[in-house]
C-alpha cells in the first residue's frame, strides 16, 4: 500500500517537469528561433523595400527627365555631398579646404581672413532624412574673405562650393578693388552631427 502514489504526486510531478522543461526551452532555445525568424523577417522586409525603391527610382527617373529642376540638377549644381561628420571634423575639413586653397593659389590671394562658428540647427524632419535615423544636424558656419583677381576669385568660389567640405555657400559679396582685383566675402556652412542637443 505504501508504494501507491497519490494522484497529486502521480500527475503533479510530470506536470511540474513539463513546466520546467517548457521554461527552459522558452528561455534558452525559444529566443534563438525567434531571433532567426526576426532576422529572416528583416531580410524579407529589406528586400521588399529595395524592390519598391527600385520601382520608385524608375518612376523618379522618368519624372526627372521632364523636370529640369529635379534632383539631377541639384546633384550637378551642388556637386558631391558627404554625410554629416561631427562638428570637429566639419570645422577641421573647412579649415583644411581653406588651407588647400591658400596653398594652391599662393600669393594670388591677399588679405584673406577666415572665421568659423556655429549656426542654427537643421529642422528635425530633414535631419532624420539626411541621417537615416534620429539625430540632430548642426550648421557649422564659416566666412572666408580674400582679395584676388576676378579669375582667381571665381575659381576659388567654385572650389569652395564644389568641395564636399562645404554644403552650402550662403552669401557672396564682391567689391571692386584697385588694380583689377576684387574683395570677396564668402559665407558658407557645413552640416554636422550635433555633439549636444540643444534644449536637452
Amino acid at each position, binding site marked *: 500500500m505504501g508504494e501507491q502514489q497519490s494522484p497529486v504526486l502521480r500527475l503533479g510531478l510530470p506536470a511540474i517537469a513539463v513546466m520546467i522543461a517548457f521554461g527552459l526551452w522558452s528561455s534558452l532555445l525559444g529566443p534563438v528561433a*525567434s531571433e532567426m*525568424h526576426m532576422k*529572416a523577417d528583416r531580410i524579407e522586409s529589406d528586400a521588399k523595400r529595395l524592390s519598391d525603391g527600385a520601382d520608385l527610382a524608375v518612376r523618379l527617373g522618368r519624372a526627372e527627365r521632364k523636370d529640369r529642376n529635379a534632383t539631377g540638377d541639384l546633384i550637378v549644381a551642388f556637386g558631391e555631398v558627404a554625410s554629416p561628420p561631427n562638428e570637429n571634423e566639419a570645422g577641421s575639413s573647412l579649415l583644411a579646404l581653406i588651407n588647400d586653397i591658400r596653398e594652391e593659389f599662393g600669393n594670388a590671394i591677399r588679405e584673406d581672413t577666415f572665421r568659423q562658428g556655429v549656426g542654427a540647427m537643421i529642422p528635425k524632419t530633414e535631419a532624420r*532624412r539626411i541621417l*537615416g535615423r534620429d539625430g540632430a544636424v548642426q550648421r557649422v558656419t564659416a566666412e572666408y574673405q580674400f582679395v584676388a583677381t576676378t579669375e582667381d576669385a571665381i575659381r576659388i568660389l567654385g572650389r569652395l562650393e564644389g568641395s564636399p567640405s562645404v554644403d552650402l555657400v550662403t*552669401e*557672396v*559679396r564682391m567689391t571692386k578693388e584697385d588694380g583689377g582685383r576684387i574683395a570677396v566675402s564668402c559665407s558658407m556652412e557645413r552640416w554636422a552631427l550635433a555633439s549636444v542637443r540643444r534644449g536637452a
Partner: protein
Amino acid sequence: MTFPTEGTILALQPEGTRLRAVTLERQNGQIRSATIRELEPETSSVLAMVAESEAVGVLIMLPGSAMVVRTALLPGGSDQDLLPALTIQSEALLGSEHPEHRMGRGLLPAAPGESNRIGVLTSWPVQMQANALADLEDQTEIPVRWTTPAAGLAGLMGAHRPTGPLVHANSHTGSATFAWSHAGGVGFRNVLLPPGEHWPPSVGRAFQESALGSGAPDSWAAAAGEALQTGLASLNGSITILPHEVASELQEQTGLSSAELGTHGILIGALLIDPQGAGLAGLRDAMPTENPDFQARMTAALSVPRTARLIVAAAALILIFGPIVSAWTRLSVVESRNAELASMVQDADALERSLAHYDTLGNTGFSAVKVLSDLFTNLPRGIRVEGVRMNTRDASFSLTGKSIPDRSAGVSATDVIESMRQQLGQDRMFSRISLNWEEPDAFGHLEFTLSGRIDKPHKDVMYQRERDFAAYSLAARMYPDAFPNDQTSEGSALEGSAAPVDATEATASTTQSDFVASEESNNDDSRGEIEARLNRPGLTGGDNDTASMADANDRGGSMVDPNLIPQPLSLAQVQALSRDEITAEIKTFSTAYNLLRQNGASKEDNPQHALFLQIQASWKDLRSELLNRSREGNN
C-alpha cells in the same frame, strides 16, 4: 479471407489438356444446382469464367498423386468435440512435416446406428507443387482453395454406407482413391500405380488388399476388386465411380446425369464435406498471410513498447528542436536568396540619405556660383559692376555699379540700365528687380544700385549666343577684325533687348565691369569653368571658344566642322564608362550639342540635323547614366 458459403463457387479439376469446371450455386452451404463446363487450362480462361459466372470462390481439385490420406476412428460425439482430437491424431497419422495450410481434416457424418465417428485426414505435401493454376490466387480477389480426391469421396459418401466402394481413378497418372464401408467403419486409401495395360488389374488388387485389410469378407473384396478392374479397363482419363444409392441421391440434388457425376462428381463431393472450405476442402498452396491496412499496421507498430518509446523520443526532439530547425531553414533560404542584400541595403540607405541631403540643400539654398554666372551673363555691355552681394538663404541679390553711355550710338546710361533690367527679367529667373540711380557725373556715368530676388536659381537657361560672353567673347564683339572666326552675321547678332547697346558699343572703356567683362579672356575661362561644372550645354567655352569657331561660316544653317563633333555613343558604350569619363564626355557632348544647335542643326532641314539628334541622344544618355550612378553610389 474466408471461403463463402453462399453464391456461386467455381470448382476446377485439371484433366489432361482440358480443365473440368463446375459452377455450383450454393445456399446455406448446400449445393442447389450445378453446371458443367470445359475450359482451357489457363489462368486467363478461369478468370473469364469467374467473371462470367460471378463466382465468389474457386475450389481446385488436386490429382490423387499429390495427396496423402488417412482415417482415424473416433468415438461418438459432436464435430466440435471431435475435431481437436482429430488434430492431435493428424500429427501421429500424417507426421509433423506437413504444414498446417496443406492439411485437411474432416469428419464423416455419422450413419444411422453408427456409434463411432470416422475422421478423414488429407495432406498436400510441400514437394507437390500446384503446376496448373498456381498463379490464380495472385490474380483474383476471390478466395482460392485446394482439395483432394479423398475429400471428394468423403463428401460423396456422407452418411451413406453403401455396399460398393467409391472410387476416383486416373489412368494417366495411375492414381486411384478408394472409399468403402466395412464393419469397423469407412476405409480410405490412395494408391499410385504405374499406368498402362496392367494398371486396371493392379488397381483391382490394390482395392482387394485394402478391403481385406479392413476386415471385409474375402468374397466381397474379390468381387469388388474384379468389378473395379472391369470398370477401369477401358478408362482413358479420370473417373469417379459411385454406388447406385449415392449416385441417385446426388442426381436428385444437383440435376446432373450419372455420366456427368462420373466426370465431375468428385468436385461436388468436396464442397459437400466442407462447405466452409476450412477443412478437407480448405488446403492452400502457400501459407496465408495477413495484409492489414495502414492503420492496423501503424497501430500494431505503435503497440510495440520499444517503437512507442522511440516515437515519443523523436516527437520530443521535434518539439524541442523543431522550431529552431524550422527557423534556421527559413533563414538560410532567405539569406541564400538575398545574398547581396546587406550591401544593397547599405547602398540604398546611403543613396536615400544623399538624396535627402540634396533635397534639403535645394530647399535651403542654391549654387551661388551658378547664379552669379547667370547674373553676369545678363549684364549688357556698358555696365561696370562695382559690387555684388548674393544671399542664398533669402534668395536676394544686389548689384552696384556704373552705367556708361555710348554717345556715338546715341545710347544713354539709362538705356543701358534699362537693357540690364530687361535682360534680368527676361528668363524669369530673377524677379522684383528694383533700381536706384543718382545724378550722372561729369562724364555722364550713372551710378546705380540694383536689387532683386532669385526666383528660379536652379533654372538651366539656354542663353542666346549674343547674351553669352563665353560663346561670343567681348573681345570679338569689340575687335571683330582681330577675331575673324568669331564673327556672327549682323542680322542674327542683333537679337534681344540688349541689341541696341551691343550693336553700337564701340569703346573699350564701356565694357563690362572690371571683374565681369573687361577681362574678357579671364572671364571666358571662368565662365567656362563654372558652366562646365554646372554641365550646361553650350557654355563650355574652351581656350579658343568653340562657339566662335561654330560661327566661322555664319549661323543659321552653316556646317560645323565634323572634326569638332565627337562620335555619338550608344547606350552600351555610355554604361561602360566610368563616372569620371561620363563627366568628361558630358562636357564634350554639351559643347558639341551647343555648337550644332547654334549653327541651326536643330532644324529638320539642316544637313547636320541627324547628327544633332545623335549628339543630343548621347548627351541625354550620359546625363541619365550619371544620375543613375549618383543614385546608386557607383563609380
